[in-house]
């Protein structure tokens, strides 16, 4: 197996919570990313899914160098980039680029499209000879399916989908190997999403790119991803091929997540497993001990109920109904009996919540 193009090892990012007017004290930490392991192979798309507060956006920023990790390693082509100095960071930037979520704020409204796409060349003059800059920009515009004659137009003259294409062109200017796509289609109309997704897939084939595709829309991720990682409260709950995750998921959170996604087929109404989670996501500043999902986990509750007395059933609050190991031991992300792909759960069990039962 060839070396993965991107490898994340036990990555941690804590944001300090500060208080005070003149001298600020740190009163706590928001554990946005708290020990994440991820592997991305060349030419593949890894989908990262999770809900608000799971840390996927922070993960994206860490990978692109917009945030510095608190601990852990990020290896691009085997080299740990968290220890880089300035020139090392510059080289990294050439290789890992990001496509942003909001097409309306990710382009500087005062710059022409040509300037926006040419900016990487201005910042890295060694990437392309000065005389070739304009030609390179036009080629990029053409590659994303826009008209190169519109090089002098401003972002507001384009639609949302077109602006997203401009963002993609900008990200490709330095010929990176890895694209971090942070919710690239969430802000677009449904019928335009397909256009941009198709474009990304086409570019991946043509240029041999590797994508880390972050999204909250599980249907989109299923379409584009080869492998998927599910995040919850700063950690990876489960990771596997898209077939393993969507058809044979093992983590209760993944199962709850998938069962909540509606499918545009009325005939399936009432035919799928319905798992409804109670309560709110805990704050990343104060995650539960042991397994973070235990406060909302139906599996934990079921396991706990097996040995609970009647009195305990009456009095224990919902969030506390979990077996002892869920409360004290952090489950490691590893393969467990009953499945081939790594899952972080003491009681992992396979369940299909996507297709109709029976």
């Amino acid at each position, binding site marked *: 197996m060839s070396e993965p193009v991107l490898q994340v090892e036990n990555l941690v990012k804590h944001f300090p919570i500060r208080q005070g007017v003149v001298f600020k004290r740190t009163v706590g930490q928001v554990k946005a990313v708290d020990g994440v392991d991820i592997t991305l192979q060349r030419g593949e798309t890894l989908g990262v899914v999770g809900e608000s507060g799971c840390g996927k956006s922070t993960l994206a920023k860490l990978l692109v160098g917009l945030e510095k990790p608190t601990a852990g390693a990020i290896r691009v082509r085997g080299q740990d980039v968290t220890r880089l100095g300035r020139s090392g960071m510059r080289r990294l930037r050439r290789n890992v680029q990001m496509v942003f979520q909001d097409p309306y704020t990710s382009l500087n409204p005062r710059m022409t499209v040509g300037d926006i796409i040419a900016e990487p060349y201005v910042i890295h003059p060694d990437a392309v000879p000065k005389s070739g800059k304009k030609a390179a920009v036009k080629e990029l515009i053409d590659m994303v399916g826009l008209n190169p004659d519109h090089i002098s137009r401003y972002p507001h003259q384009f639609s949302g989908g077109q602006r997203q294409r401009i963002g993609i062109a900008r990200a490709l200017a330095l010929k990176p190997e890895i694209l971090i796509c942070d919710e690239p289609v969430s802000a677009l109309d449904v019928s335009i999403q397909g256009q941009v997704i198709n474009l990304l897939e086409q570019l991946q084939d043509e240029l041999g790119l590797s994508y880390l595709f972050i999204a909250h829309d599980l249907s989109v991720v299923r*379409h584009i991803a080869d492998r998927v990682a599910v995040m919850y409260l700063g950690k990876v709950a489960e990771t596997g091929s898209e077939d393993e995750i969507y058809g044979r998921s093992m983590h209760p959170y993944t199962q709850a997540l998938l069962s909540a996604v509606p499918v545009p087929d009325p005939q399936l109404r009432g035919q799928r497993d319905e798992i409804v989670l109670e309560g*709110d996501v805990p704050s990343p500043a104060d995650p539960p001990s042991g397994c973070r999902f235990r406060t909302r986990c139906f599996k934990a509750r079921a396991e706990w109920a097996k040995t609970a007395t009647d009195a305990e059933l009456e009095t224990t609050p919902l969030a506390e109904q979990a077996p002892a190991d869920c409360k004290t031991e952090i489950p490691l992300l590893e393969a467990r009996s009953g499945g081939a792909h790594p899952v972080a759960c003491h009681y992992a069990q396979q369940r299909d919540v996507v*297709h109709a039962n029976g």
Partner: protein
Amino acid sequence: MSIDLDRSDDNAVAGLPGYRDDAALLEVDDLRVEFHTRDGIARAVNGVDLRLTDGQTVAVVGESGSGKSVTAQAIMGILEEPPARVAGGEIRYRGVNLLTLSADQRRRIRANHIAMVFQDALSALNPVWTVGFQLSELFRTHRGMSRKDAKRRSIELLDMVRIPAAAQRVNEYPHQFSGGMRQRVMIAMALALDPKVLIADEPTTALDVTVQAQIMRLLAEIQQERHMGMILITHDLGVVADVADDITVMYAGRAVEQAGVIDTFATPAHPYTKALLRSIPRLDVKGQQLEVIAGLPPTLTDIPPGCAFAPRCTYAQDICRTDTPTLRTVSDGRAAACHFAKEVMTDV
């Protein structure tokens, strides 16, 4: 949890001209809404019909610019006029044409009979008043309740929408609730005076998918309990498939298809619906090429003659560019605005 239904305001409606007990709950007839903008007149809603009966859920589906939100706001009577202007049509609640009522009458209908839930609870709720205060105000203003009774009702209401520890949380401010909880509060406020019609405008778009499932389930239960009619405005066809009985697809201010959900999803009768269904990725299927709808929706100030969808339509012929298709019945209980609806339905 049942709430003692106070129907003292029913008489108010019964006295209005046109009221008929047996009339359909809500009927929208050829509604037209214009916006006067710097760049001309935008025909946001260009002749829309809708029908809602008790206990029914009608989904109004469309992308940005389709006119679905404007239609909802017109029904509620919360359009800002100017720049908006209702240019024609009727909106009948049990036979009473709402557009002919005075502002005051409209307001009372709005609170007691037709209610709305919005996408963003944070901007729909007043941030400087507690949740309990906002709820109580409704009871005190419209039902003349005492402060104590109003508060008790408010707590009952929060309980009904499954907010835990309702008796304590009733004294909290909107920003102290999470997104999903805030949405529940907004639903509680909408349902406080027991309306017969609930309009939900993208109620779960801004929420996580697990929270979305909770909220949609809550709405479904409440609707069934109260035999309420619900208009669900959304762009998410998955949600529509899950909860709606009937669907109205809107494009450029017009309803282009109306039918039951099962029929529409199985054999769409309008090219836009068909293309839309084919362009969305599905959770249970992998690997198909996503179909793309070429081009962009028209700007509402500049809608081309003929069918507004013709420039992007693969079925388009010359007649489509000159003859605007009207919403016609194409088979039992199904209507579509397309000259070639039959072909669209039978094509695979």
